[in-house]
């Protein structure tokens, strides 16, 4: 081999390497744009976060019995409602009741030995040292940050005073623990900021606040001890330290719980809590059907997106799902497994395919006694495509909807003749009519009122002639993946997408596409981004004393 040839080879190698890097860069999209950030916020724990946090900290044998105040949906997400809503007196009473019940269970005679890390000198008198050890141990986990003796002093004092009255050390601890469980530090996830040493005049989220963002997004619960320790060490402020924790959380089976929580919010599944069907019209839609329908979709979401790492868009066309006997009765499919779930594949000639044909969509977005193309179209637009459908005018005439003997398509023609209705209904009804093969309980049907059901329409220009093709049309709509990416980010940071975020969102959408619309990649892209942690206010000058 000559030197000239070696040089030539070297040049070829360099060119090839550069080309490869270029391709990889193109695949990964452009660099993340400079983050603008948003104001630091406070978010109340959701019901599932509250329950999971209590189970993680105190054990699954501690029951949280009772009903939570309904959460408020804002800008498409309950998570954003939780960032805006206040705390009503009724909600506070509920939290207080939960707190008393939880602390009583934690410190009852059967549990206290395993949970209190020390023994009081005498059970009938206060013991500040032992009380502090107990309260500091759980205070750190409940408040999701390190706690100093000064932080704990009020709680230790409260325990001591309660013990003086009750002459029972554990009753004193119960009072203090109850107080911590209704403290804002526990009930609210508060973004704490600090001066950013790398960027003068900027602030950054504290390590503990970063830990909460990561943990609540990925696991739907408070940070575990490892994550708190990483935050305490400052690891989360470095790419390497952050990446290590993100990879750990992403690789955990607990990611399932995080994604179940997100998709429950994203798909509007809180409506299952109040879903009821007319028992005369749909006798087999029993209460357990609603619970199973919710579970079916969440199982598929986790299996499709996390276990199989498939394209998000294929959720709307896949023939694969899960079935149990409760659902089999409504889907009219046989289920061999007597108790539990089994994989199920809708046959090629079955009109069902994808999430839109699940009961969690068709039955959830229907009236108690009949289907509703309007509600289904609205859900498709608002939930899945992040589009806004204005509310109906106050003087709506519902008489058309009550006309007997017509198909939904015929009834809804009325909308196109009324200018006040047509504007909104033309974006909801045509696409909703594509699912008219499913009645109000989500059962397959070929006729309505004795007349054949015509399935034909288009979604933003893509024609369809069957329910399965509605799913295909949705799959091909670029707003579909963009919507879930936007909502996931908003869910994680707790604030709505603002016009200033356009560059970031473009970057996110392109990255999602470059990743083959694989959800774990989208999660990683968000959680390791600067945007996820960026806060914009207030100026450092106003942060005197905040460390």
């Amino acid at each position, binding site marked *: 081999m000559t030197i000239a040839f070696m040089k030539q080879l070297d040049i070829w190698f360099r060119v090839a390497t550069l080309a490869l890097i270029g391709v990889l860069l193109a695949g990964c999209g452009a660099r993340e744009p400079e983050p603008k950030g948003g104001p630091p916020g406070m978010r109340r724990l959701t019901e599932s976060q509250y329950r999971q946090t209590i189970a993680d900290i105190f054990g699954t044998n501690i029951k949280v019995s009772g009903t939570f105040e309904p959460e408020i949906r804002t800008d498409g997400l309950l998570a954003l409602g939780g960032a805006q809503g206040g705390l009503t007196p009724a909600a506070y009473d509920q939290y207080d009741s939960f707190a008393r019940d939880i602390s009583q269970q934690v410190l009852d005679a059967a549990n206290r030995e395993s949970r209190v890390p020390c023994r009081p000198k005498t059970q009938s008198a206060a013991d500040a040292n032992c009380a502090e050890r107990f309260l500091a141990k759980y205070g750190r986990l409940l408040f999701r940050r390190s706690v100093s003796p000064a932080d704990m002093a009020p709680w230790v004092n409260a325990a001591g005073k309660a013990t003086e009255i009750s002459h029972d050390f554990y009753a004193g601890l119960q009072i203090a623990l109850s107080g911590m469980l209704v403290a804002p530090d526990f009930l609210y996830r508060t973004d704490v900021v600090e001066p950013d040493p790398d960027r003068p005049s900027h602030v950054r989220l504290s390590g503990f606040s970063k830990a909460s963002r990561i943990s609540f997004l990925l696991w739907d619960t408070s940070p575990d001890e490892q994550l708190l320790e990483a935050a305490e060490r400052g690891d989360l402020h470095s790419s390497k330290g952050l990446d290590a924790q993100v990879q750990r959380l992403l690789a955990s089976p607990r990611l399932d719980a995080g994604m179940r929580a997100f998709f429950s919010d994203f798909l509007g599944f809180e409506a299952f809590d109040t879903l009821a069907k007319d028992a005369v019209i749909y006798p087999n839609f029993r209460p357990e059907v609603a619970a199973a329908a919710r579970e079916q979709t969440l199982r598929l979401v986790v299996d499709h997106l996390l276990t199989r790492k498939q394209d998000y868009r294929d959720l709307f066309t896949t023939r694969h799902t899960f079935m149990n006997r409760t659902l089999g009765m409504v889907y009219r499919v046989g289920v061999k497994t007597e108790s539990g779930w089994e*994989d199920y594949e809708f046959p090629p000639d079955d009109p069902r395919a994808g999430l839109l044909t699940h009961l969690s969509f068709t039955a959830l977005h229907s009236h108690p006694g009949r289907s509703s193309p309007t509600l289904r179209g609205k859900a498709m637009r608002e939930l899945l495509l992040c589009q806004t459908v204005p509310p109906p005018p106050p003087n709506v005439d519902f008489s058309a909807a009550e006309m007997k003997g017509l198909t939904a398509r015929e009834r809804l023609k009325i909308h196109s003749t009324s200018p006040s209705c047509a504007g909104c209904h033309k974006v909801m009804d045509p696409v909703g009519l594509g699912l008219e093969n499913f009645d109000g309980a989500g059962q397959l*049907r070929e006729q309505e009122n004795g007349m054949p059901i015509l399935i034909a329409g288009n979604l933003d220009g893509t024609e369809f002639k069957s329910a399965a093709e509605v799913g295909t049309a949705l799959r091909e709509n670029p707003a579909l993946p963009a919507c879930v990416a936007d909502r996931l980010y908003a869910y994680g940071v707790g604030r709505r997408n603002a016009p200033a975020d356009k560059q970031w969102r473009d970057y996110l959408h392109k990255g999602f596409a470059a990743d083959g619309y694989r959800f774990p990649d989208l999660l990683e892209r968000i959680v390791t981004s600067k945007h996820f942690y960026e806060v914009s206010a207030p100026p450092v000058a106003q942060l005197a004393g905040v460390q």
Partner: protein
Amino acid sequence: MHRKSLLACVLTAALLAPAAYAAEKEKTLGFVFTYLWYDLYQGDDACKEPAIGAAEYARPKLPKSERSGPMAGDLLQKLRNYSLKGHTGHDTNTQGILPATEQRKNVVWIPGNIDMCYRPADYDDPPHRVVTGPTALGMNLDGSGSAKASPMPKLCARQPFTSPSGERGINNQFYRVIGCISSYRHDGAYRALYSDEIQDRDRKEGRNTTLLEITGVDDPRNDDDVQVGIYSSPNPTQYDSSAKGLSWVSYTAGKEARWSNVLKGRIKDGILTTTPADVRIHKVHNHSAGEAAEWYIRDARLRLELHPDGSAVGELAGYFDIESLYDVEFKGYHGAVMQSFYGYSCPAVYASMNQLADGHPDPATGQCTAISSALKVEAVRAFVFHPDSKPQQTARPTT
């Protein structure tokens, strides 16, 4: 990678398509029985007088000074208590009749504290009051129209009934036995506590679920050669909130081979009939202990109207083996408890069943060992699985 997957899918679909088509053609119709209980004519002409309860039978057992008076109040309570003797392991106090201690003090009827319903042949109660009317539901099982023309030996020849629609030769002698007992009558004072309701409850609790599977169906309206499976299942039968059977529920047949029956059948104009064959169906006879029993139906035959909406109604008739039928209906604690309330005594009923037996004579004695009866059947469509069947089945909607 995706192209390979696509190719594999296409090839798989192409290979599976003929099999799927064949499976569709060779259709199987699954059902669950939502009602399976004696088909009883409820007309006023059935009984001259109602059957006597065991409490009344107990009256002669009382001291003379206490025997007279109407069957009410304290006397009724005491007589009922006498008729409840000997339920070892069951405290009759739970029935709200008398304190257990008082009950034990009053044990006078059954020596040795042995339940009379377990040993019906050991007692000689006055005759049971049976149906004397001419009308009954059921089938003409022996093909004759009268006792004289019956092919049975004389010892077993019984006068048949005429159906409400005028069909003669109806063999349903078990109806004679139970037709005047209050709990079997829809107008009976205690029907709300027994019979239909208990059967419904047992089906809902998975104790008497029965499945029907018609296989080899080329045409659901007319097919002269189908196979009819009748299987007991441990799965609860599913009903809606108005107690109507739910369709399209999946059920698994039980593993006990003796309660898996396969008959030959035909469908004509939407009516399924089967050729006579012995059928065994799982039942429980002791609700407290859940003891296994069965309807052992000799020469059983099914007649079922298959409706376009997926429902089906008809009858399952045949000669019920007397010993197993007695076990199902009267043996054990529930039989003993019921006899104190509902107008029969176990020994009298047992004797009556033997006297009216009209099928399967014992070759040695000539005494018939089975009694004609008919079960009313209501069924809805269901998915029937067997312990070794494939995991996925589908069905087309009927709406």
